[in-house]
């Protein structure tokens, strides 16, 4: 069996279902590959080894028995370290949850296993999702498989690197302000952030609840459609999940984009872009025009305020969401304190990393008496204006297009001392997050030194079908996604 690791999730599922390949061999090949290659990249925090093989055996046994196999039967999937799986360690990239084992399983993981997927291992991330480079992990950084001296992006950098290095065909991430799309762009893979509420957040360790979305990364658009069909749906355990039907995601195999109006907001397609990113994006726009799409110049006037708006809201919610890590019930408790209050203070000071503490402090400030209206309150009002901008622009076009990240993968350590430069990495992804829109990043080129460049699509709420169909055509008509970081 050659090169199982280069196959897509869709192809692997087909082979397992037809009996041409055993699930055990699929899982075995990925585990071997992780053991062999991941020490160089540190995409994984750990893998389930024998337990994953046992799950694969169960799929093979079921198939031998003639039982119905789920749509993801035998497909090994990695998940970000902020999704809880019963009995397994989940640390959200933080010292605070070092060794924490969850007594329950996240809905999005439950749906995967119910569909026959094999949970392979846990991927690295910026602590609690706070970062754009995976350098804020308490367990050390992840390296970009295309350029090991560069970051994979973040915060789902472990998942992006794992998919790019073909250590798994599909990996789950989470996207609060771009944490799936930006690492997908920097690692040359496809990343989908569904609409807010489309996939249950139950079991996703919260960073900013009104923005958090479970997403996925893969090497093809088709694989993301396969995943979304399994993952989407209302969940009683998540009151913010939506019951809207999922329009048909079957790729229609059309070869052109005639009749599709693609909006290009100038605010997201010019200022602050690296030259090669701008050039690749322009080339993509030309290619899309060549495929018959109508390119619509448009504007999102309030998008200039998206980054400060995003950070005010995300940090305020984070300060509240992270208050539960107090050393009382679970997680790290520092010894030596004599009073409850001191125990909490010491545990939090030692358990949280620098960036997390910075965001908790800023978030607390933004909600304080006397400042709440000025900061958090104003941010929520701007958020509404931004939503209105999107509603208005979606009257003129079907989808929006921009680069995913203003920059390609940057060297490790080059931005850690400049939080503001790091926050600006998110300038192009946070608008869709604030508006709850579905968005997708796919490869659209490379820098001359071989670093991937990503293209971002945004669609109206709950129109993942549009995203996936158009991205699928672009993918089939271009060859960017066929390049591999590793053989």
């Amino acid at each position, binding site marked *: 069996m050659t090169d199982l690791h280069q196959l897509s999730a869709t192809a692997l599922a087909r082979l397992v279902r037809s009996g041409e390949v055993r699930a055990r061999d699929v899982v075995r090949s990925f585990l071997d590959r992780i053991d062999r290659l991941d020490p160089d990249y540190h995409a994984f925090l750990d893998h389930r080894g024998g337990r994953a093989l046992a799950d694969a055996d169960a799929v093979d046994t079921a198939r031998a028995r003639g039982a119905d196999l789920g749509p993801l039967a035998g497909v090994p999937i990695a998940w970000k370290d902020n999704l809880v799986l019963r009995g397994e360690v989940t640390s959200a990239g933080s010292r605070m949850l070092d060794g924490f084992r969850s007594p329950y399983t996240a809905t999005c993981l439950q749906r995967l296993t119910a569909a026959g997927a094999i949970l392979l291992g846990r991927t690295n991330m910026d602590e609690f999702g706070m970062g754009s480079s995976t350098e804020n992990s308490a367990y050390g950084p992840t390296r970009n498989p295309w350029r090991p001296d560069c970051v994979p992006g973040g915060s789902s950098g472990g998942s992006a690197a794992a998919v790019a290095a073909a250590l798994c065909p599909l990996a789950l991430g989470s996207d609060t302000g771009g944490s799936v799309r930006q690492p997908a762009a920097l690692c040359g893979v496809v990343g989908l952030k569904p609409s807010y509420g489309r996939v249950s957040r139950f079991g996703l360790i919260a960073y900013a609840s009104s923005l958090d979305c479970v997403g996925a990364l893969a090497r093809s658009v088709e694989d993301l459609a396969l995943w979304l069909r399994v993952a989407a749906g209302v969940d009683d355990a998540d009151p913010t999940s939506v019951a809207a039907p999922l329009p048909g995601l079957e790729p229609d195999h059309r070869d052109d984009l005639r009749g599709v109006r693609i909006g290009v907001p100038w605010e997201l397609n010019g200022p602050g872009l690296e030259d090669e990113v701008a050039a690749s994006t322009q080339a993509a726009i030309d290619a899309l025009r060549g495929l018959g799409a109508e390119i619509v110049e448009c504007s999102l006037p309030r998008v200039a305020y998206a980054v400060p708006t995003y950070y005010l809201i995300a940090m305020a919610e984070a300060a509240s969401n992270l208050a539960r890590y107090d050393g009382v019930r679970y997680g790290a408790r520092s010894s030596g304190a004599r009073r409850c209050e001191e125990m*909490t203070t010491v545990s939090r000071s030692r358990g949280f990393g620098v960036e997390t503490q910075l965001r908790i402090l800023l978030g607390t400030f933004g909600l304080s008496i006397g400042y709440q209206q000025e900061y958090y309150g104003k941010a929520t009002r701007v958020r509404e204006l931004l939503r209105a901008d999107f509603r208005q622009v979606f009257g003129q076009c079907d989808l929006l297009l921009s680069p995913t990240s203003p920059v390609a993968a940057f060297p490790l350590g080059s931005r850690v001392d400049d939080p503001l430069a790091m926050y600006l990495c998110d300038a192009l992804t946070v608008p869709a997050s604030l508006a709850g829109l579905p968005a997708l990043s796919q490869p659209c080129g490379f820098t001359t030194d071989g670093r991937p460049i990503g293209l971002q699509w945004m669609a109206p709420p709950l129109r993942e079908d549009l995203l996936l169909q158009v991205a699928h055509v672009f993918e089939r008509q271009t060859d960017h996604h066929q390049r591999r970081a590793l053989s």
Partner: protein
Amino acid sequence: MTDYTTVIGLEVHVQLSTHSKLFSPAPSGALGEPNTRVHAIDLGLPGVLPRPNAAAIELAVRAALALDGDVQTVSRFARKNYFYPDLPKGYQISQFEEPVCRGGSVPLGDGRSCRLTRVHIEEDAGKLTHGDIGTLVDLNRAGMPLVEIVGEPDLRTPADAHAFLHNLREILRYAGVSDCDMELGSMRCDANISLMPVGSTRFGTKVELKNLNSLKMVQRALEYEERRQAAILAAGGRIAAETRGWNDEAGESRPQRSKESAPDYRYFPDPDLPPLVIAPAMIDRQREALGELPQHRRARYRTDFQLPEHDILVLTQERAVGDWFEALVAAGIEPKTASNWTMSEVLPAQRQRTTPLAEFPVSPQQLCELVQLQGRGALTQVSARKVFQHLLVHGGAAEAAMHELGLLRIVDRDVLQPLVDAAIAALPEAAVAVRAGKERAMDAIKGNVMRATQGRADPAIVDALLRAALGIGSAPPA
């Protein structure tokens, strides 16, 4: 005290009578062993989300309707952020700017009422026990559903506060919203009190009183605080804005926290919970479930049954008592007779029991049959009580019990005559007194006959026979 007007406002937390917690499926109700009624959601484990309990929302709406409040069709949950070891998430889910109910009132019983500012829904915290080995955390109570009822500063005396709480409790119990047991903590009260010179309209500096675990404690603590503040003001002092804890044993309050050190709770809308939308149909259902409130029932008992005020108060203290009484009336018993039976027989028997009145072992139909036997003259009052006690224990039909107990009223003069003669012989002094005109001395002789017949003798016949035997006239008309 005559120089000052007292201003009191109460904030009352009431635990809703649901089967499960406000945002988790963990059971509520009586608390078990520590930390045995705790779901991952109550623990605030990483990744959990609150799951609103529809039954709790319904009861909160019912409470709002019972208190004549304005139910808001759209309200919001908010996070109240603070650190405390009994607060698992580091914030309490409550309501802040957009409560489920605005306005409302509680009658004070004398025609006045106290306005309410609002009623909102929130979750309870856990419990800490400080001991030698450290601080113990019990999260059984964490996440229990509460409504907080915020009263306007309309109360003017500690007795007003007592009346407010008494009536509030009665209404909420009637509505089936809560058992409102202050001793067990299902109703908790904080009181704000300030004094101002008589005639002034500007409220003085208020003090918040906590740790008030019964209606009596609320009144005692307020009386103490009224005296304390009056003494300070009379001596030219200033009242410190503070929270004071009531110590009932010592009979005094002690400072707990000054208002300057009050934490900044950083309220903001809970992003995990969409706005709480209440459908008009749900409000209608709760209005129906609400049934009749105590003040309305009292008015009806006055006009429909013409009962004495005392009877009305006793019969309407709890919805179940009135329901039982009305079942007797519906079964055909005359209202005052039904009231008498309820007050003098049913309620004393119920007090010995632990099950609800609705499960009382004698049904209204059985009791009706008994009352009819008495009405037909088959049973004396004393015998009827004996049959009732028998039915309590053994059940069955009243008539069968009467025969089984041999309690049929004795009206046969041939049977009674020798008993009357024996009683006169046994009580010669009484007989002399009666002959000398002291009719009241007859009671002793009658009592002797009643004892001899276990209360079965027809009192009128005994009276007639006795008068004949003693040679005095018939009884004066009553």
